[in-house]
């Protein structure tokens, strides 16, 4: 329905072209066409790169995925590629996602709301914080790994992993939540900044408090943008391997760690999909090549599912906004 109301798409392209010609003196738009082609090439380039990756992985991992998909997804790490499975990695990645959603999203969005709606934009403190957060978003992920090691594994090890020297999925989840926090803050702040000033002024004009304006007008308007940012952040946290190595994800072998919802096991040793992929990729032999490719495909699917869920949510907000 939103398509129908958009004036730009009303009428045929032929009519649009006729109008354009009549107001630009009838000349063909050469520069415009070249520009369009350049943009198209840029787009094709990214699509081709993605396609090559996916096709390469699918060809290499096809046998694993077709012949023993069930065993592969429900199996454990092993010394033999034929017996290897990724359930423990899926579990770790699942919990990292949960920690990101539960910790980084609320904290990040709340920080962004404060920075955009409440703080004085021109105050030195606000600008200082803003610049710092932008810098933090560019800090290499290993540095966050070191932070996680110092803060969660060493200092808080007794709480997050009393029976694993702190090297638990809780420590990993917290580390990655902090890693994506700046991204969530920045993208949410951008989304809030894009809300027209007039919407707020109209709210204040009819006597609404700042809270009411934020809650009922600004947030619904900014929700799709905020969601886009959080999706990128979630995908990032699901795909990171470097910080997990420092936090102590298990690379070689792990027994147990297959119960997804066993909260008591959250303090045990863990592994995650990106770690499994990095480890397997380094092992010799054809067998490891194909299970690595298969694990990469599963990780892609996991990220895709997370993205799809967020896009569905965003579309719902979009409709609400009308």
């Amino acid at each position: 329905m939103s398509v129908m109301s958009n004036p730009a798409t009303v009428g045929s392209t032929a009519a649009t072209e006729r109008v354009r010609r009549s107001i630009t003196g009838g000349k063909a738009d050469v520069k415009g066409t070249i520009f369009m082609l350049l943009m198209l090439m840029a787009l094709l380039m990214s699509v081709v790169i993605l396609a090559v990756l996916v096709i390469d992985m699918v060809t290499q991992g096809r046998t694993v995925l077709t012949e023993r998909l069930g065993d592969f997804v429900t199996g454990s790490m092993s010394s033999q590629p034929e017996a290897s499975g990724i359930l423990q990695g899926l579990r770790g990645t699942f919990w990292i996602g949960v920690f990101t959603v539960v910790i980084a999203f609320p904290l990040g969005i709340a920080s962004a709301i404060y920075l955009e709606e409440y703080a004085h934009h021109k105050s030195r403190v606000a600008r200082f914080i803003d610049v710092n957060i932008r810098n933090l978003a560019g800090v290499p992920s290993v540095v966050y790994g070191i932070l996680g090691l110092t803060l969660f594994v060493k200092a808080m090890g007794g709480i997050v992993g009393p029976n694993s020297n702190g090297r638990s999925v809780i420590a990993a989840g917290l580390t990655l939540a902090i890693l994506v926090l700046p991204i969530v803050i920045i993208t949410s702040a951008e989304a809030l900044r894009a809300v027209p000033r007039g919407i707020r002024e109209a709210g204040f004009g009819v006597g609404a408090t700042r809270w009411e304006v934020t809650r009922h007008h600004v947030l619904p308007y900014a929700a799709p943008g905020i969601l886009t940012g959080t999706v990128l952040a979630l995908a990032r946290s699901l795909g990171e391997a470097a910080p997990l190595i420092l936090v102590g994800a298990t690379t070689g072998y792990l027994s147990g760690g297959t119960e997804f919802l066993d909260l008591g096991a959250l303090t045990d040793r863990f592994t995650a999909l990106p770690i499994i992929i990095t480890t397997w990729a380094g092992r010799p032999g054809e067998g490891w090549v194909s299970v690595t490719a298969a694990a990469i495909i599963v990780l892609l699917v996991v990220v895709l599912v997370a993205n799809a869920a967020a896009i569905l949510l965003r579309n719902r907000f979009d409709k609400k906004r009308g």
Partner: protein
Amino acid sequence: MKLFPTGREARYSALKIAAVPIAGALLLGACSSDDSGDGSGSDNGSESGSGSVVISGSSTVEPISIDVSEKFAGSNPDVNVTVDGPGTGDGFELFCNGETDINDASSKIKDEQIEACESNGVEFIELRIGNDGIAVMTNDANEAISCIHGGDIYALVGPESQGFETWAAANELATEVGGEGDLPDAPLDITGPGEESGTYSSFVELAIEDYAEERGQEAQTRPDYQASADDNIIIQGIQGSDTSFGWVGFAFARNADGVKVLEVDEGEGCVLPTDETIADNSYPLSRPLFIYVNKDKAAENQALTDFVDLYLGDAISSVSDVGYVDLSEETLAETRSRWEARTTGAA
């Protein structure tokens, strides 16, 4: 721009400051990175719990420990076993810090590592579990050579040998590094394991590293050789040329046809790799493999005791299953009695 001033501003500016600790914490983390190794003393007190076995250490021994762990997990589903392979040295740091129960090691514990363990009150039981040996080979038909000096091996496949297309091309370099330098003038066709293989790193550590270090080179092989992850293909490469050169794990070379396993001379005469010369480490390209068990943890953790019992019992076959050389009967018996008696310290 203060469009809508309210009375709350003051309260919120206090909140603004709350964002600072996040940045501060990150800075702190980045600055105190050096702490990661030695850790805090409080870790020593934490127990691994009765239901877990934590193994770290050498990536060479890692496949053996993983194989044993899989056998163990089959009959002990409630015990959490974790195996990592960051390297012998990194493993000892964790082990002497009391963080791991067992450390895999591809070399004997060093004096400074013993000191580190002692200063943290960690007593260890040293258990030799197997041997790592690399066989260097040529084609059966190659009459020109039967014994090769360590320096010659370095000259043939070390980091400085890139581009050598005949054996003789390496002679000058071989003499320089203390080898014999009497290699035949024949085409050189090299086949060996690829860089990602454990046999590659074993070979580099046993045959290349010392020479490379002395000459200020990186410890690696030349890049221009036929690399394969499949031992069978390496053997085929050796069989495929009359003047080939290559290396595989000894356990594999022993059973290969059409190849001539070379004797190696590292200054103490030519030694042919055999089960005996590898077991007593008189063959230069061999080394013992160990596991180090934390004695106190073994005393209080039944799962750990059961695990080591299995390791030295039925599961000792894992050593040869993953491609290494078994201990001799006597050495294995010695290892078992060390474990039974819980003999601490390095032998």
